[in-house]
């Protein structure tokens, strides 16, 4: 179908203020990719509505004219979910940035979708509350995007992902109808469409107001850092700590490759260079409880074979221990200019075996792989390092990436823990699910969006995007790969800019 984009622009201008319609080629360039820069496609038209009514009017227009659309938050997504690969109207929520209601008595807050994740906590921190899901891009990423991707974060081990924290949503359906899913309470006597909408990657509609659960900030936080001479020992420490009933807020592991990259970046030996793994454990809660938990966790790390253990409880000392982890991707980025990140998940007990297998694959493909991961929940982020100017390297990188995902699935895991399927991993979704599984999921799509206009082509494998024989490797061969910050970062307030410097979007 050919879409008359000039006519669409005129119609959009009739519905929205002039500044809310972007049609100039040089401005559209800013929307040609999200955080996954491997894929690029410039959309024909972008609108930036400010209200629910405007979103509804635009979607009614799309519905009437059969025009596909896709919603975009801050553009930090890592699965190409906001990529306008087929001609589609991009609806950016970056001007929907109001906090609509703060209800501390019921520990909830209602925000527009463009509100930045970190702003939610900032709005209530003075009263001792916070919003728990904390993707590493939280100074830039939007709540609407978090809802679309069901984003996690370092602390989701203890506190859960986005879906555990959304109470109610106002949603504009693909035909322009506005409805409410859920209520201000945790349970509502209705089908849990709120639950199925979260993580649907923009394929079911656009959330225009989101009510979130707030948590009380813990009284005390402590960080423990232990280093091990074997990855298995670090894995064993994670197992012992979990089994002891200590539920850390987060547990992160860095491998030897990453440790050395970080030490190189810092120009000093922040971590022992010969360590096979560094384990970071963050514990939070009542002060006395945290003290006891640090004691227990430290003892269990020693039992598992930790060489040295460092502890920190003051904010500054904690930041110091976290610094290496937070800089890990920047450090790795200094070794080669480009890398490709995966988001596989494995059962916790399979971690050591899968890591060993990744190392073996890395040797076979002659591509270095750095491993930094959420050890508590088995979510791996292997980084495949390469030089884009090396002939044929992209294919090799993607083959390796696919083999790593294969390993995760064979171990009983998943192809994505928090980044989403998007356009990046849709050709692997049928590795996890049988045709009947996918057909059943599509029933949901057909009920929400019978015309198939919302973010078309994402999540589900299609013959067009994943041609039967070629699909295991193809996908994205033509494009230059690089890692850069999302463009919307520029829109973020000046005071965020410093933290952006060390931003690690994973």
């Amino acid at each position, binding site marked *: 179908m050919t879409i008359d984009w000039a006519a669409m622009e005129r119609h959009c201008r009739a519905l929205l203020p002039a500044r809310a319609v972007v049609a100039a080629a040089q401005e559209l360039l800013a929307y040609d990719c999200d955080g996954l820069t491997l894929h690029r496609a410039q959309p024909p038209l972008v609108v930036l509505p400010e209200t629910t009514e405007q979103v509804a009017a635009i979607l009614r227009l799309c519905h009437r004219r059969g025009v596909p659309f896709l919603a975009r938050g801050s553009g930090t997504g890592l699965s190409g979910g906001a990529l306008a690969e087929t001609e589609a109207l991009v609806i950016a929520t970056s001007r929907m940035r109001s906090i609509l209601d703060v209800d501390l008595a019921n520990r909830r807050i209602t925000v527009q979708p463009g509100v930045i994740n970190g702003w939610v906590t900032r709005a209530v921190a003075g009263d001792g509350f916070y919003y728990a899901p904390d993707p590493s891009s939280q100074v830039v990423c939007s709540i609407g995007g978090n809802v679309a991707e069901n984003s996690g974060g370092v602390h989701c081990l203890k506190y859960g992902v986005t*879906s555990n924290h959304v109470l109610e949503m106002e949603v504009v*359906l693909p035909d322009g109808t506005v409805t409410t899913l859920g209520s201000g*309470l945790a*349970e509502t*006597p209705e089908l849990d469409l709120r639950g199925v909408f979260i993580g649907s990657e923009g394929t079911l509609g656009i959330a225009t107001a989101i009510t979130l659960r707030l948590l009380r900030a813990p009284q005390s936080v402590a960080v423990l850092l232990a280093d091990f001479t074997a990855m298995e020992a670090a894995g064993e420490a994670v197992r012992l700590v979990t089994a002891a009933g200590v539920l850390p807020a987060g547990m992160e592991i860095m491998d030897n490759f990453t440790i050395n990259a970080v030490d190189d970046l810092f120009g000093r030996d922040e971590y022992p260079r010969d360590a096979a793994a560094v384990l970071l454990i963050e514990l939070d809660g*009542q002060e006395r409880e945290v003290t*006891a938990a640090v004691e227990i966790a430290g003892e269990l790390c020693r039992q598992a074979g930790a060489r040295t253990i460092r502890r920190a409880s003051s904010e500054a000392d904690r930041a110091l221990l976290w610094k290496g982890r937070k800089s890990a991707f920047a450090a790795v980025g200094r070794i080669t200019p480009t890398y490709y990140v995966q988001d596989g998940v494995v059962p916790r007990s399979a971690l050591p075996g899968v890591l060993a297998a990744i190392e073996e694959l890395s040797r076979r493909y002659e591509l270095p792989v750095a491993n930094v991961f959420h050890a508590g929940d088995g979510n791996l982020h292997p980084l495949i390092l390469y030089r884009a100017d090396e002939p044929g390297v992209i294919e090799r990188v993607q083959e390796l990436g696919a083999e790593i995902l294969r390993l995760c699935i064979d171990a009983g895991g*998943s192809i994505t823990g928090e980044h989403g399927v998007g356009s990046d991993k849709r050709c692997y979704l049928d590795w996890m699910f049988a045709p009947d599984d996918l057909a059943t999921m599509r029933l*949901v799509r057909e009920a929400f969006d019978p015309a198939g206009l919302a973010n078309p082509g994402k999540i589900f494998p299609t013959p067009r995007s994943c041609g039967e024989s070629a699909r295991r490797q193809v996908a994205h061969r033509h494009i230059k790969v690089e890692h850069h910050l999302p463009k919307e970062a520029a829109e973020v307030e000046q005071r965020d800019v410093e933290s952006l410097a060390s931003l690690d979007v994973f």
Partner: protein
Amino acid sequence: MRPEPSELQELVRDLHRQGSAWLPAGLGSRLDWGPPVQASCTVLSCAALRGVREFNPGDFTITVAAGTPLVEVQQTLGHHGQWLSVDAPWGDADGAAAGSIGGLVARGLAGGYRQRYLGVRDQLIGLELMRADGVTARAGGKVVKNVAGYDLMRLFTGSWGSLGLITELTLRTLPQPPLRRSVCFQGEAGDLASLSRWLLGSSLSPERIDWWNGSLAAAAGLAPEPLLLIGLASVDASTLEEQVRCLQERSSLQARVLDASTTATWLALARGGAVTPSTAATAPAWLLRLGVSPDRLETLMQAPALAGLAVDMAAGSGLGLAWTGPEGPHQAAVTSGQVMALRSLCTELGGHLTVLRQPRRAGLPAWLDAPSRPLIEAIKRRFDPSGQLAPGRLPGVAQSVSTL
């Protein structure tokens, strides 16, 4: 009907060919909860789908057949120092009416443990289901973090059998808290409200904060005054002591520290004790699910519309249950009019009321229309185009009284 696993699919396909109505069920212990279904409906129990399919303690996840009793799952986990952090369903949960894990998920009603561990929907990481047309499908997986594909686990939690039969579930498990302690306070609603407000705004993280009304307290052999039951858990004994002290200092009310066995007895009582949850003459005439904005709980608990009901509410979520004794001469006290008034009050207080059980001729819709009713009906049409499953029972769609 109680098909064996090998017969299930063929049976469902037969029912589909005939266009027969059927009700997906677990062990059938709470069949008459919620909206009444068409009398001619075949009940298809998954009681024969039983047992743990996969459990590796180191992964803190368990895969079970949907007909496995919750108590059995808890026992298996208990041997490894783990548990499923959910409350048993209301009514004789340890006895003859022990419900299945599939039933618990299909109703999706969480109890007081929600305070620390979230709800039933939040424990579920994978699902296998059978559709009305006999097609088997899976969603989610066996890992605790997974965003691949649509979240059908949540769609099916609280779907009351309207979309398909749940055949297998994978859930996250937790290590059992090494130490637990409960404290209770009795007194005026205002004093309990202020203690609960403070506690919810504090950095303490109790497992539960249950608010009972006077009738329920009386059933526990206590003075018929409202009561706050606070469950604490920790890895450290001195932390527990400090938290108990902290609570004592906060309130002018007398604190009573409960031992483990008293706590267990009381919690069982608040889940209906040995009362049969449905069908039998001894089942409660009224069993209601209540929800209000947590900050309006004090108003609810003092409402005249609660007269004659035992009430157990979770202070943090504003969700809970209210019930009466069995239908009979002494139960004239609670009328449909009173429950309708209570429903209006709950709505006014930012929540809702679901009628789980009611006297035969009361005729109240179990739930009211949700704002998203057209979308809910669209989902139903896609999953069950012939309207075979649990006819008349679709959460978020009120039944018209004439169909009752």
